[in-house]
């Protein structure tokens, strides 16, 4: 359907959960775009909640094909534009952590390897939110999901969150960044910076999920902020492969992870010992990403 008369890139009226962390992040991303943009979207909450036919929330040209192939579809869009001699239209991929860390990873690697001018945005909810909160490669230690439930013999997820930024950097991307819902201006600025770079760029945005994290509908932004303040999910920016900006800077004062974990139902079963372990993960980050 033609969406030319829409005056916004993402209109209200979608059916995401009230207070959805991802949708607030998407709005911030959209503020960083111009109308001269084409979006390839992976399967997931964002696709399902914004495109219930015959309606759509999108005012930009937008396509969804499958779960794992948004990156390759974007490569095809880029190739078609390049063939037209159009090197100015921006191509944006949007996917969740399941589509990025897990099922789509090989195809993302292919896209990055080809050096195509495409911005990839991962909305990281730390689980498969759309199918009912199953664990993904992004699920952090101790999180209870429907496929890593806590129980007498289980702490929840025992995996270490995969380091997608390192994978992006290993492909030689000139712009790689991490941020969180709750910092809308930072998201918008990062999108603008990424689009100014020629070649592939990657931005990962922590997107608190109301039902997945078992938080209240008005807590997504706060949880995004806390994740950053504890050092568990620092705001990071790599330019030309080097850490060029970090929330762990001279002004950084770490808050204990306890405040972050206790507010979320997915972590409510953790023992003091588990929390201590997660505190040590935050401290590793604080060392690693200090600027």
């Amino acid at each position, binding site marked *: *359907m*033609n*969406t*030319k008369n*829409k005056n916004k890139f993402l209109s209200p009226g979608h059916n995401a959960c009230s207070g959805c962390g991802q949708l607030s992040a998407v709005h911030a991303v959209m503020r960083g775009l111009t*109308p*001269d*943009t*084409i979006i*390839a979207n992976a399967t997931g909450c964002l*696709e*399902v909640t914004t*495109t*219930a*036919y*015959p309606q*759509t929330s*999108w*005012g*930009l*040209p*937008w*396509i*969804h*094909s*499958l779960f*794992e*192939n948004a990156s*390759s*579809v*974007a*490569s*095809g*869009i880029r*190739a*078609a*534009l*390049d*063939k037209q001699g159009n090197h100015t*239209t921006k191509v944006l991929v949007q996917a969740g952590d399941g589509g990025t860390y897990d099922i789509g990873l*090989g*195809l993302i*690697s*292919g896209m990055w*390897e*080809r050096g195509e001018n495409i911005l990839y945005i991962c909305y990281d909810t730390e689980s498969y939110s759309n199918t009912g909160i199953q664990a993904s490669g992004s699920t952090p230690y101790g999180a209870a999901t429907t496929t890593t439930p806590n129980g007498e013999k289980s702490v929840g997820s025992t995996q270490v969150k995969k380091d997608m930024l390192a994978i992006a950097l290993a492909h030689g991307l000139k712009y790689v960044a991490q941020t969180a819902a709750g910092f809308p201006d930072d998201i918008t600025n990062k999108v603008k910076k990424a689009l100014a770079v020629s070649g592939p760029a990657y931005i990962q945005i922590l997107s608190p999920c109301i039902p997945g994290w078992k938080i209240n509908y008005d807590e997504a932004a706060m949880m995004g902020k806390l994740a950053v303040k504890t050092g568990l999910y620092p705001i990071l920016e790599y330019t030309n492969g080097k850490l060029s900006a970090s929330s762990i800077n001279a002004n950084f004062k770490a808050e204990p992870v306890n405040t972050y974990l206790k507010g979320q139902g997915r972590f409510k079963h953790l023992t003091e010992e588990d929390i201590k372990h997660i505190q040590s993960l935050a401290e590793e980050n604080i060392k690693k990403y200090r600027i």
Partner: protein
Amino acid sequence: MKKTNIQHRVKDHILEGSKAIALTINNINLDVVSAYPITPQTHIVEDLAQFKADGKAEYEYIRAESEFAAASIILGACATGARVYSATSSQGLLLMVEVLYNISGMRLPIVMTCANRAVSAPINIWNDHSDAMAVRDSGWMQFFAENHQEAVYQHLLAYKVAEKMSLPALVNVDGFILTHSYEPVSIPSKSLIKKYLPDYKPETGTYLDPNNPVTMGGFFSSDSYFKTRENIVTDFNLSLQEIKKEYRKLKKVFNFKDDSNGLVEYSGPKKPKVILVTMGSLAGTIKETIKDYQEVGLLKITTFRPFPSEEIIKAAGMCENISIIEKAVSPGSGGPLYSEIRAAISQTGKRNIKNYIVGLGGKDISQKMIQKIIKDSRNKGKQITFIG
């Protein structure tokens, strides 16, 4: 018996089948090629890469890291208004399956070549039709070529009908038998192709364009999903007439004659006692063999999807003995072509319809085997026989 009437223009070259296909593809005004290597498809995509390297091609050539990616890349390009191409075989085609369904559901007129090869396990790189049959229900038109020249023309036909009907098409060429063999073949010129197949210009508002934004691939409720799938079937049925019409035009523009109507080709006596039915290069072997038989005809199915039931009934419905010789089998049933022909012919009364499974994994199919099949065709009894 009636002589098969094939009068092509003087053939210009003696070429490998893959080269003939690649040269034809390069003569189409094409925008984007993406592919991943798999035997026996490789020579086609290597040739296309070489044309590009030599500055003799205008298309963008995107090296994919898997067939899944290649299919997704051409999907994205086609959705942005580009004319696109890929080629694959066997495991590669099967890896693409999820994307193939997606392409047809999105009504993208993509054309691919399948260099037909057996499917693993056991691993085997030689020719049969198991790969094409595995994607039978994916919503792609499927053509089967007998020889290099037919493969060349079927690609032009495929693009023409695909773009007219907004349906994707797969052109099947037997791996090695066609892709790696040399035959005299004429490659249509760019200007003549343009006469038949004008540049691809999708309607404004049907593809990704910042000046006319559209949402593609949205979430459909049961009602709209049901209607969409039904529409695809309706258009497949309509495409039968389009294929016939466009094949007539093809013969006119490229100035050749044959006994095919684009859907099926019958060669043999007017009232045969036995009709053999097959697809692809095997038709050549059968044509040679039946020269010695007065009462045996050959029905070559050139279009498998849409399935030309009416044409098959017209050509073979009144013949008492019909034997389907095919290079694929559905375990627990029979040959897929056999099952469909049986379903079509059963409307015309009791016939002796038999199924011979041959050539799996590239097992050589000799004229002796065909003679054996002809001899057995009139016997009642066992319906599905493996000849190998």
